[in-house]
């Protein structure tokens, strides 16, 4: 699901660059495969349905948030407020569950859209740096969520919402199914729709896109709105898994996990390309890596160091490739 898989480099680029290009293109898949292979031989009870199920359920919210993040990063932006959007959604849920699951869900998603709208307006109309614009809601959004929830952790008893978190269809957990469907939808959006192609073009050369008459502000705003809605949805799913609305800690550091998944998946931070499948694989890689190390009785700190090494490798590969 790469943007231009068929492009053939013509210039005689050095082998180092070719390697870098290959790694950026396929490295993340190779790494996921290698990890699975390693675990198949060296880790007991790893390749069991139960374990894989757990891993997928854990990674699903990250994947959903990372899909939105990939779109934002594709426009040469970044969204730090995704964790706060999750918290807002979580805080709103118990307030509206009295009207039923669907109204509560809509309100939660709407909150995500509003967060995105504010981000998008700050970036595209006011012209703030994305990192600064989204920092405002990174701080403010969670504060607002805590006000809404009175700073309280609230137990979720609504059976419909709980079913969303625990239910499954054909043996596949609903959460995983939703993440999978969304990944396909975003991939379709990026590759087959006007909007998606405009996102990539704007990320690739904003001035050229503007001169070509693309609705730059509208597309940018749309991207942030999508990212906010996806984050809010992830917040809802995570809340139902937790069986509690916890706006004070839900989604903390989520922005970093999402950015990591996107970058490790081969989407360049410089914009101009969105790798949807790569992003999913990037999230999986980080999840599997931690699980593997934990199963081998290594402390969580080791996992963090390993993850850091992978991020550096991913950024290095992207840089090597760009310096042509």
């Amino acid at each position, binding site marked *: 699901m790469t943007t231009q898989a068929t492009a053939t480099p*013509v210039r005689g680029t050095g082998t180092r660059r070719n390697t870098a290009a290959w790694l950026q293109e396929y490295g993340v898949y190779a790494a996921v495969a290698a990890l699975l292979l390693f675990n198949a031989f060296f880790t007991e009870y790893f390749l069991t349905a139960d374990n894989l199920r757990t891993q997928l359920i854990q990674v699903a919210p990250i994947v959903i948030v990372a899909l939105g993040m990939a779109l934002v990063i594709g426009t040469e932006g970044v969204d730090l407020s995704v964790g706060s959007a999750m918290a807002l959604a979580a805080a709103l849920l118990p307030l509206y569950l009295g009207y039923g699951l669907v109204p509560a869900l809509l309100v939660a998603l709407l909150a995500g859209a509003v967060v995105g709208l504010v981000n998008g307006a700050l970036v595209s109309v006011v012209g703030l740096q994305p990192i600064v614009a989204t920092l405002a809601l990174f701080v403010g959004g969670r504060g607002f969520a805590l006000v809404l929830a009175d700073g309280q952790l609230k137990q979720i008893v609504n059976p419909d919402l709980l079913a969303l978190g625990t239910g499954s269809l054909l043996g596949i957990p609903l959460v995983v199914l939703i993440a999978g469907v969304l990944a396909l939808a975003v991939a379709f959006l990026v590759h087959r729709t006007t909007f998606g192609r405009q996102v990539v073009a704007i990320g*690739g050369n904003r001035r050229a896109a503007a001169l070509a008459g693309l609705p730059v502000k509208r597309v940018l705003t749309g991207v942030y709105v999508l990212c906010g809605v996806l984050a809010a949805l992830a917040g809802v799913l995570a809340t139902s898994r937790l069986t509690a609305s916890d706006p004070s800690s839900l989604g903390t550091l989520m922005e970093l996990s999402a950015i990591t998944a996107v970058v490790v998946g081969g989407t360049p931070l410089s914009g101009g390309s969105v790798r949807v499948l790569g992003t999913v694989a990037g999230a999986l890689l980080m999840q599997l890596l931690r699980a593997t190390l934990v199963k081998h009785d290594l402390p969580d700190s080791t996992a963090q160091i390993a993850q850091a090494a992978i991020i550096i490798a991913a950024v290095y590969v992207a840089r090597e490739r760009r310096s042509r």
Partner: protein
Amino acid sequence: MAPPEAAPFEAAPPEAATPATSGAPSSAAPTVLEAHGVGKRFPGVVALDDVSFSLRAGEVHALVGENGAGKSTLIKALTGVHRPDSGELLLSGRPVRFARPSEAQAAGISTIYQEVNLVPLMSVARNIFLGREPRNRFGLIDFPRMHAEAAALLGGFGVTVDPRRPLDSLGIGTQQMVALARAVSVEAHVVVMDEPTSSLEPREVETLFRIIDDLRRRDIAVVYVSHRMDELYRICDRVTVLRDGRHIHTGPIGGLDRMRLVSMMLGREISEVRRHGMTSFGSEGHDVARKPVLTATGLARRHQLDDVSLELHPGEVLGLGGLLGSGRSETAKALAGALALDAGQVRVDGAPLGRFSSAGAIRAGISLLPEDRKAEGIVPGLSVRENIVLAALPRLSRLGIVSRARQDRVVDIFMKRLRIKASSPEQKVGELSGGNQQKVLLARWLCLEPKVLLLDEPTRGIDVGAKAEVQALIDELAQEGLAVLLISSDIEELVEGSDRIVVLRSGGTVGELVGENVSEDALLAALADHTTPTQDSPNPADTTTGAPVPAAEPSAAGSAPAQASPPADPAPAAEEDPR
């Protein structure tokens, strides 16, 4: 372009010339800074090729040339930003090498760049004294003294601002004055000014000129880079012309005919008319419709455009002539809705364009091929196909979903028609040659089926073969009834490609060449602000020795300019050619 009151006095307004004479450098003035045979290469370009330049104490030396002439590189070599590959620099007769700008500064060479290069958040006074702040006996910055000195310094320039204010709270013109104050206060022997007036108001320009006169009196040498002819003739003593990285001419500016100066900058000899020589444009004119498709009236934008008006008819190629900085690209951008205007109107088929936006202009049928292919044209990471259909995406989609089949059809047609050489439509545009990138961009605009095509330097930086193809294409498009606006610094291309040429100067339309007058001579004359084309003035005695140019015109006024006082009597230098 009214012929009557001929141009001679425009060459150098007499009242302006007076201060220049007072401190006019005689040939005896010592040379402060000299460059001998300086060469500088960058990958793929020779930026400077054996250029020599000498600067005398107390003179204002104009440095002129079009894009790529090497002005900036020369300045950077003089000020320690670049190290020349060959040649040497002499400061007051002693060879010097500057490894860093700070070394040049320490040696007394100050530079004021086009973009103000100060620290926006620091106070005015700190900016002026940055790195050499007055200290008190504890070694701390002596703020009262610094503020007092800064205020006094600025006061001398007629600028009254509180030196404690942060720099970015000032207008850009005042910031430029602060930069100037800094440059002057560092005991400079040489002050380099790179387009100092580009962001100044007329009143501030006057202040600047007063300061320059003051510098001249203090025997400080000034290198003055500007595209504004009037300024050059008003304030400068001598001029050096560079072209394509080579030294072309150095001599007193007062004795130099304006048209001759322009022809040296552009590299076209006067009277060297070669209509239909080297370019690939067809020889006959096009059938031009009577009714204009595009009418622009009174386009204005601060510092950039000042009353541009033009009409564009279906089936014609309208050339837009002008020197660097005359507002050609800005005009094209304004017509394409990419530059917000302070005043003026653009009509397409009689209907005014509403709010200025690129999308609006495109809907109205106006397409712009921008000058800067890399920064404003291609999306390098996307494929040839995606770059071609970029602007047409909504038209190739249904319900927001792009039809691949329709895309492929369009891409196929244009890749064939424009002979775009790529391994496949999926090859990334960033991997193509400049010429093919340009063709991809042309395809992007042509597939929108525009009524008006604005081409800003369509053949710059592309190889000869592609250039010929693009030129032939422009011809063909006009024949098919498209209205084409052509901007080109290649004067031959402009003259041969255009049916008509509108001439811009200082952001305004100043004339139009039609019919027989679409010639290099007439264009040069128009660019040089002459009312009629002149005979070539045999004026070859210009050397770096500084010998004043003899006025060789068979002029009625006759009196050759007196030695060493060129600006005092500019009239005979200009032609007296009533035809």
